[in-house]
């Protein structure tokens, strides 16, 4: 029974991966990746990694892929124009040859190795509430042996969220000449448009929006002397 599920999930995962690479429309690529992730979660289940399989489905195939779908819809994923002549084709063939070489090398490294355990079913497993791969097991490991990586990962997520907001915000909120709200006193201590969240969403900012053609205060450059 495990063999049947392995082949279904494995073929699905590989087909999804090929779909991601081959499909022209980015939205279809995202959907192929979702199916790939679901098949991969089934493989994780076969490897007794129950918690990771659930996290894969909920976080990866759910949350992260929703982010992808939103960005593809926003950017307008146009079909990619594939140049079939000239340098593009040679590069494509070279890339496929290189990928085949990577696979051959990895397969030789894996299958030609002398590790006996690699061609076995794995360590003995006995089911139970604290068994290998259950949420209780993972949670105990995360909060005892791997507490530092856990904390570092949380900080990494925080930094990534802040970075994404900083990268994707609007730089110039309103058109010039548009009346603006009075800005709070703390804002006078810094030059205009140096970036706050309120500015990004077009809230309280400078008293008047500066004319983009007019040099702003703090923006003066030394005049170039005509020689």
């Amino acid at each position, binding site marked *: 029974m*495990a063999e049947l599920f*392995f082949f279904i999930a*494995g073929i699905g*995962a*590989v087909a999804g991966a090929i779909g*991601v*690479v081959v499909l022209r429309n*980015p939205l279809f*690529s*995202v959907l192929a*990746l979702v199916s*790939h992730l679901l098949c*991969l979660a089934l493989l*994780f289940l*076969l490897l007794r*990694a129950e*918690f*990771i399989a659930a*996290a*894969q489905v909920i976080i*990866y195939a759910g*949350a*992260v892929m929703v*982010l*992808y779908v939103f*960005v*593809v819809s*926003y*950017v307008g994923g146009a079909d*990619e124009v594939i140049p079939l002549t000239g340098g593009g084709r040679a*590069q494509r063939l070279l*890339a496929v040859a*290189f990928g085949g070489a*990577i*696979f051959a090398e*990895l397969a030789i490294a*894996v*299958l030609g190795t002398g590790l006996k*355990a*690699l*061609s076995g*079913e*794995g*360590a003995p497993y006995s089911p139970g509430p604290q068994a*290998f*791969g259950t949420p209780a097991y*993972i949670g105990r*490991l*995360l909060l005892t*042996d791997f507490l530092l990586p856990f904390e570092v*990962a949380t900080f*990494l*997520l925080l930094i*990534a*969220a802040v*970075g*994404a907001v*900083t*990268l*994707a915000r609007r730089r110039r909120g309103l058109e010039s000449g548009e009346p603006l709200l009075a800005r709070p006193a703390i804002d006078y201590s810094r030059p205009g448009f140096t970036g706050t969240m309120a500015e990004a969403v077009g809230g309280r900012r400078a008293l008047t929006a500066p004319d983009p053609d007019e040099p702003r205060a703090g923006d003066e450059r030394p005049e170039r002397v005509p020689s």
Partner: protein
Amino acid sequence: MNIDWYVTVSALIFSIGAVGVMTRRNPLVVLLCLELMLNAGNLALIAFSRMWGNGDGQIFAIIVMVVAACEVCIGLGIIVAMYRRRLPIDVDEIRELQG
């Protein structure tokens, strides 16, 4: 099933992802192919974790998932910023990321 089957599937997915990174020109799809490669690494980690009956590989896989989520977050932020600046969404056209 023997563990080496899983590791072989992982190697196959990794090389498919590598081909995608090298051939596709849309940065969105390049990010998707990076996800493929990270997931192949995850599959290998979990297969080896099962092989030894040790949970450390699974913890490593969770950390890899966290790093992948961060990378997606930043990458999509950069793509949205590129779109806002009317830059072409094409990795061949974008040769520099300054300003």
